[in-house]
């Protein structure tokens, strides 16, 4: 998925901001492509808790248990898709 295609639904900049603040990544999130595997950039499942809470707060959404999976938090694109689904 391209950044432009996602832009129409969810602001990936906001997702990147959340990741920068809560992702505890080993590389600068802004240097990574939307499809880059965040687990390869040091994302841990515990860090996803902080990311989830920040996204819920920012987008006024609530993640159901079924979406708290590795695949949801795998990349900027997958997070933006999840947020779009929940906000939509």
């Amino acid at each position, binding site marked *: 998925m391209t950044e432009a295609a996602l832009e129409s639904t969810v602001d990936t900049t906001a997702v990147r901001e959340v990741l920068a603040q809560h992702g505890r990544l*080993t*590389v600068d999130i802004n240097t990574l492509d939307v499809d880059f595997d965040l*687990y*390869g*950039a*040091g*994302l*841990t*499942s*515990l860090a*996803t*808790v902080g990311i*989830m*809470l920040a996204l819920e707060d920012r987008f006024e959404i609530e*993640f*159901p*248990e*079924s979406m*708290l*999976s*590795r695949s949801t938090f795998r990349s900027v694109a997958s997070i933006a898709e999840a947020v779009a689904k929940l906000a939509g």
Partner: protein
Amino acid sequence: MTTAVTELPVTETTTAAPVALTFDELLTRVHAIGRDVLAVHANDVDRLARFPSESIEAMKQALLLSAYVPQEYGGMGLNIVEISRICEAFGNYCGSSAMIYAMHCIQVACVVHHAQHSSYFRRYLKQLVQEQRLMASATTEIGTGGDLRSSICAIEVNGDCFTVTKKAPVISYGEYSDDLLLTCRSGPNAPASEQVHVMVRRGEYLAEPLSTWDTMGFRGTCSSGFTVTAQGSTDQILPTPFNDILSLTMHPYSHIVWGALWTGIAADAVNQARAFVRNEARKTPGETPISAVRLAEVDLVLQEMRHNVYGLAREYNELLKGGCPGQIHGFGFSIRTNNLKLSCSQRIVEIVGQALLICGISGYRNDSKFSLSRQLRDAYGAALMVNNDRITKLNATMLLAHREGN
């Protein structure tokens, strides 16, 4: 359980077809090994903090080191519930021997669950069955603060070969194992959390002692620290990222089999208390001694502990059979696994402590047949191996995200 799970090896004097053992028969044999071997040496192993070589040898003779290896490789093909029952049984006789057996089974499970699609590891499983190889683990590292999910050391691959050097603060029975599963970063430039699981074989690694193992309990596990310098073929890298191995296998499997062997130690203490109460009751016929009431109370806690272990063991077994990695990965199952560890490690101290109250000074003495010294010292180790505070903190974080039922 009446299904045939294993076969007796054919001895030279036997010409008849191998006799299939049911699981119950196998368990009877496990108890016989416990009584005749583990229990006989348990106090000596504890006193000298020495490796229980007699126990492990007896387990090898009974082919128990390949109990979790699928039958197609020649193993017994037991499931986690059955392995737990064996660990519990061994826990009745010698905590250190039971712990070594449990830890070995965890390593076997990592290979069985995550490496069967590699021809190297398929061959390894056959070799494990034939040679009854003992597997150990080097997951923690000096400098990571006990966090299994990160490594400092990295594997360096050169063509088909690798080298790695790890400073491990603890490698249980490291001096006595045949093979070692070691974690490290996947390369010199990989982040700390991007780990691989590598098998290093005896003869292919050097282990330089870093620390000794003179502890309160589980003294026979000989869990000294070592700097391991290893080399080998890249085939020896498990073909699944360690993160998946940890959450799908190592984490749940460890807490279940540990809980099972701790239950065995607790049951041993309760059995001693029961024997003591019976002695008391004989002295005052027709009157139920006060210690019998205490026994009734502690028996209840033991039952809860045991049910907790087998409840999660069965749930895990179902998830494995159903091929539901998503659910094992999920926070819900992780939290329940951690809760099992927290609960069992507290219950074991409570139960052995209660048994000590029942046995009184006879339990407190080192030279009495009712002595509970070893069981009590072993019991206190349960909360420390993977520290309960760390686990509680992880659960606290996961509970922020986890929601029941949706």
